[in-house]
């Protein structure tokens, strides 16, 4: 069965434009982070990691949520293409999740003097979320390809989405925190220029993730179509 969607020709033409937009936005975000945003009075230059670390973490959450949405659509509409879309979204989420852990760890070392603190709920919960979605691949590739694998993967992706609000709200729920809480009920605890820089970086990471998602999906669909063609010819 082919996994191509009716919109696949539109996807092909959109990928180069999306990639160019992502590259431009990432360039603008770096320029803002280093040349426009003022230096933080408390943390100094190391605070500039925030402009990439937090948008990457939010993008990871969005990718996992997108994977769950696609999983739900698969269970609801029984359309095979949602399985591949859910898998690719979770794959992107795992990449962005590992970058969140790496950049966060470097920032922690620069600011707190530790690479990792097991006492920090925010860090541990994000690690749990990351490991949960890493196990998704072990589960997926241990089952033979077909509707059963698609359904089990979709259910697993849906279970993981419960961890997202828990991980996101952990820094507000925990009291003994070192991890900074920048966004409170009173709004963002930073200057207007800092917030603008953060928003540009967030937009850049979101567009980059979407461009990579479409690119990976395109490659996987092409691979699947070629396999089908090979089976027909041989």
């Amino acid at each position, binding site marked *: 069965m082919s996994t191509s969607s009716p919109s696949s020709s539109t996807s092909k033409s959109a990928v180069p434009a999306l990639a160019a937009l992502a590259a431009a936005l990432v360039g603008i975000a770096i320029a803002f982070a280093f040349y426009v945003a003022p230096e933080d009075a408390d943390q100094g230059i190391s605070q500039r990691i925030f402009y990439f670390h937090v948008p990457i973490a939010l993008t990871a959450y969005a990718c996992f949520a997108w994977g769950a949405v696609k999983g739900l659509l698969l269970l609801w509409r029984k359309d095979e293409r949602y399985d591949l879309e859910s898998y690719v979204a979770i794959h992107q989420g795992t990449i962005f999740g590992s970058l969140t852990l790496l950049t966060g760890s*470097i*920032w922690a070392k*620069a600011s707190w003097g530790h690479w990792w603190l097991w006492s920090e709920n925010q860090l541990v919960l994000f690690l749990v979320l990351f490991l949960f979605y890493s196990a998704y691949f072990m589960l997926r590739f241990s089952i033979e390809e077909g509707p059963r694998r698609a359904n089990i993967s979709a259910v697993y992706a849906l279970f993981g989405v419960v961890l997202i609000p828990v991980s996101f709200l952990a820094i507000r729920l925990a009291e003994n925190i070192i991890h900074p809480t920048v966004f409170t009920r009173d709004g963002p605890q930073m200057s207007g220029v800092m917030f603008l820089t953060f928003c540009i970086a967030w937009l850049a990471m979101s567009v980059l993730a979407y461009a990579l998602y479409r690119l*990976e999906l395109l490659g996987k669909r092409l691979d699947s179509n*070629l396999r089908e063609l090979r089976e027909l010819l041989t």
Partner: protein
Amino acid sequence: MSQGEYVAAAYGVVFVALLVYVAIIAAKLARLERETAELAELARTRHADV
């Protein structure tokens, strides 16, 4: 390590990850191109046989 070096390391990690990802995609595209050429050759052989 200085604070500036930590910042460079954090941004460097993201840049390297992106480069690795692009390299993986490029390798995959090269494989797909090779497979497409093989299939085209197979289709041409079939067409000539008919």
